[in-house]
């Protein structure tokens, strides 16, 4: 009985491990898939377009305030300024990202 119990426990642990690994793999693919990356660059394009709206509608007291406004907008979407910089630097070399920005810029600014 004891041997059977140990075997059952071992089997249960193996099953749990398999399920956990499957979950990790699933989670990983959800954040790094091409679709997710496209969503993220589309979000960055949208943030950039909204930032352009903001600077057209507001003067700023300091140079740092312009960056702060962008950072606030990025963080509200769960994005960092460094991510934005990388994205911005990549625009010239990526027609797809540039087109995402073009599309985002076509939307009217919020009032």
């Amino acid at each position: 009985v004891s041997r059977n119990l140990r075997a059952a426990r071992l089997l249960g642990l193996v099953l749990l491990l398999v399920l956990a690994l499957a979950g990790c793999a699933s989670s990983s693919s959800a954040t790094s898939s091409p679709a997710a990356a496209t969503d993220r660059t589309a979000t960055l394009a949208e943030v950039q377009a909204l930032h352009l709206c903001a600077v057209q509608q507001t003067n700023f007291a300091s140079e740092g305030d312009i960056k702060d406004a962008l950072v606030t907008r990025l963080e509200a979407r769960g994005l960092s300024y460094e991510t934005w910089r990388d994205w911005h630097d990549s625009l010239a070399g990526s027609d797809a990202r540039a087109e995402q920005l073009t599309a985002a810029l076509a939307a009217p600014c919020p009032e």
Partner: protein
Amino acid sequence: VLARRPRQLLAAAALASGVLTGGAAPALAAPAADAALLTVTTPAMDAGGTAWVSVTWGADNKTLTDFTVTATAPAGVTVGYPAGRRASSLYGSSTLVKRTEDFTALQVSVAYGRTGSVVLPLHATWSIEKGAGKEKSTGSLDGSVTIPLKTYTGPALQLTTTSVQVPKATPTWVDLRVTGAAPSLTDVRVTVGGPAGLVVGYPADGAFSGLDADALLLAGESDRSGVRLDASALPPGTYPLTVTVAYTGAIAGTFTGGVSLRVS
């Protein structure tokens, strides 16, 4: 203010001329519309104030590199560029990617007394790389933006310190903090009045205390002024103090506020 942003503006706005540096252009070719200045009017700013204003540029079907912008400041206006440079570019880079837009930030200061608006002439230049051969053409654009001016109305500053505490036994320096509200105040001088028996001292045995950083207080800037309070003649308790802030310059006047003094 440009609400946004019809792409057609690129064709309609006054545009840029592309100048080939590496080859012969047809003699009567129409200038290429590589870029456009999309901002016509910026948000208004206070006369006498300083603000960072933004102007938006759009690129047509070519990516523009080495994008550089300079402004010609009219009389009574000064223009500064990011990080103290002698020219500005775009936010985050000097490349304006084809069929996108980006902006240039300029620090504009306008003298007191100006009314109406400021027309700020701008000159933009850029390069266009032509394929892998690294041959480049250059282009430029001259335009202007209008900055409406408004006259500041409201309190000149705020006294942000509400209470101070000093021991009865020992004369003590206390900080009084002020925050500017008017565009800029110069030669700021702080004096304090209090109950009979309170002895107020100022730096260098002077008749007033200046600000810690400098004598200039800009809108939104916080600074402090130190005064020495000798309460040895007062019984422990709480007393009202009157803080007077005088300022001169283009806006001259006096601000009076109250602070609570606790003697322990």
